[in-house]
């Protein structure tokens, strides 16, 4: 069987199995039969005699969280895949142009000003977009420079500036109320996701994913030197702008609901590339599958392995490193 198809089937099977597992485990275990009963009742309208609390746990408590993990994982992986190709650098993550730092500063500012979760999320989303907008505007108005290098350097510089803004707000924050909230947010978590958070987040994620999936073959051209891509008939400035906007929308939406979850946008694209090669037509959908499955696995462990919630940022590296090293060892393909 073709390696690419095998990788897809495996990733899809893992995703389905993990989703079922994530719904079943927790402080109140749900059996596979009960799980099926709830979904069958929802889909086919058949009435099954199940206790109400089972349905509440599956649809209201675990449902949003499982859905959020899938959404955020897929979005971060897709954005990372696009950025690594576009910046022709396998060490790039979606944070390169400051979206996470901008979102973090927005969220910290939101916490500083108010404790309303809606305001914090809106500030985080706007902060992410504003940071990338600023970086893109400065980077593309610097004359006579390699456009990519200008963007990367501006991203690094602005990222550092925003980082010091975060540090200042942490220093000024009330150490008993605000500082723990800030620290908690910066560690990232899917614990407090609500269905209403997910509406806006999925809207923006889909708005970012759609152009990326449609343009996925053409995005290959951005991995070539600029002159070559242009000589092959691509308006690289426009295509790059579209990809940056799409990736930024997705990442900002993800970060706004989940906080900063590192590692996925950096490592998942590598894993997918090792399996199917660098062609975006095959790479992008697989990276999304793996990203979704990976974050779901991590988040499920976060809420089940210990009596307290573990921040996903701790587990992404702990689980991801051996997985990645194993893949790296068994694969014979280059980037």
């Amino acid at each position: 069987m073709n390696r690419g198809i095998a990788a897809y089937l495996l990733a899809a099977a893992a995703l389905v199995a993990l989703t079922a597992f994530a719904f079943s485990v927790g402080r109140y275990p749900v059996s596979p039969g009960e799980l099926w009963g709830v979904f069958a009742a929802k889909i086919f309208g058949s009435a099954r005699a199940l206790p109400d609390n089972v349905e509440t746990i599956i649809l209201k408590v675990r449902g949003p969280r499982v859905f959020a993990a899938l959404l955020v994982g897929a979005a971060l992986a897709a954005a990372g895949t696009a950025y690594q190709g576009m910046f022709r650098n396998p060490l790039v993550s979606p944070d390169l142009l400051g979206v996470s730092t901008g979102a973090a500063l927005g969220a910290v500012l939101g916490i500083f000003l108010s404790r309303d979760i809606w305001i914090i999320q809106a500030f985080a989303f706007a902060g992410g977009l504003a940071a990338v907008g600023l970086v893109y505007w400065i980077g593309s108005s610097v004359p006579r420079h390699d456009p990519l290098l200008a963007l990367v350097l501006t991203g690094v510089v602005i990222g550092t500036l925003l980082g010091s803004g975060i540090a200042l707000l942490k220093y000024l924050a009330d150490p008993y109320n605000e500082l723990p909230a800030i620290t908690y947010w910066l560690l990232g978590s899917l614990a407090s996701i609500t269905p209403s958070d997910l509406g806006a987040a999925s809207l923006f994620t889909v708005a970012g994913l759609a152009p990326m999936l449609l343009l996925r073959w053409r995005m290959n051209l951005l991995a070539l030197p600029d002159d070559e891509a242009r000589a092959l008939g691509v308006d690289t400035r426009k295509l790059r702008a579209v990809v940056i906007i799409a990736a930024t929308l997705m990442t900002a939406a993800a970060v706004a609901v989940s906080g900063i979850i590192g590692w996925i946008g950096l490592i998942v694209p590598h894993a997918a590339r090792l399996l199917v090669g660098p062609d975006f037509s095959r790479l992008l959908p697989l990276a999304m599958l793996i990203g979704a499955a990976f974050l779901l696995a991590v988040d499920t462990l976060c809420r089940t392995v210990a009596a307290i919630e573990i921040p996903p940022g701790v587990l992404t590296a702990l689980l991801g490193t051996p997985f990645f090293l194993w893949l790296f060892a068994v694969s014979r393909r280059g980037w």
Partner: protein
Amino acid sequence: MTRAAAMLSVEGLAIGFPRRTVGAGIGFSLCAGEVLCVLGPNGGGKTTLFRTLLGLLAPHAGTVRLDGMALAELSRREIARRIGYVPQAHAGVFAFTVSEMVLMGRTAHVNLFAAPSARDREAAERAIETLGIGHLAERAFTEISGGERQLALIARALAQEPQLLVMDEPTSSLDFGNQVRVLVHVRHLAAQGISVLLSSHQPDHALQIADRALLLGEGKALALGAPRDVIRPDTLQRLYGIDVRIVETADGVHTCLPDYATRR
């Protein structure tokens, strides 16, 4: 040669970067199936000229007409359907296979949101066969040799189905055998009616395979004409600052012999 038959015609062209002109007063035309070799010292403006002809740099003065149309009025896509660009071979970052790389030559024929069609794949395969690199098709572009990469990049340009190939020093990183092989391909492509504009560091290349030579130096076109007429000891001295003898072999081939003894 009439103006109407010219695939590419360049008049009074001044080239350079924003705020810095590199060359001026450049004019020539190129017919279907003709090979024009541009010679000149490092930094003499060969690459700048090519980038201007591809529409990647704006001309400082003058006009470029492609197939009778002003280059400035053509979109990137329209230019890519007429001119195939062969850059100097580079390794790239990601391990695309040779066939994936050649398929990218079809970009100007593929709709914005689409993937390449069966017809595009056939065109890419034909280009790969033309260059005789079928055995490399599934190898990673990052792992093949410099000569093989150059052939793959030529195949990619052919997949564009262009009327004109622009080749920037296609032989500069190749060993002796691969240099000759690439130039033989150039002659074959010209025989099929494709115009070729290439640059080289070897005057011999122009003497052996070009129909005409353009000497680019001192910020202008120093000479344009049949290679045997313009590649002379005095023009090469002016272009490169070295003494060169032009020798005719018993079977009538001209070749350059630099004078190593008196060279300072």
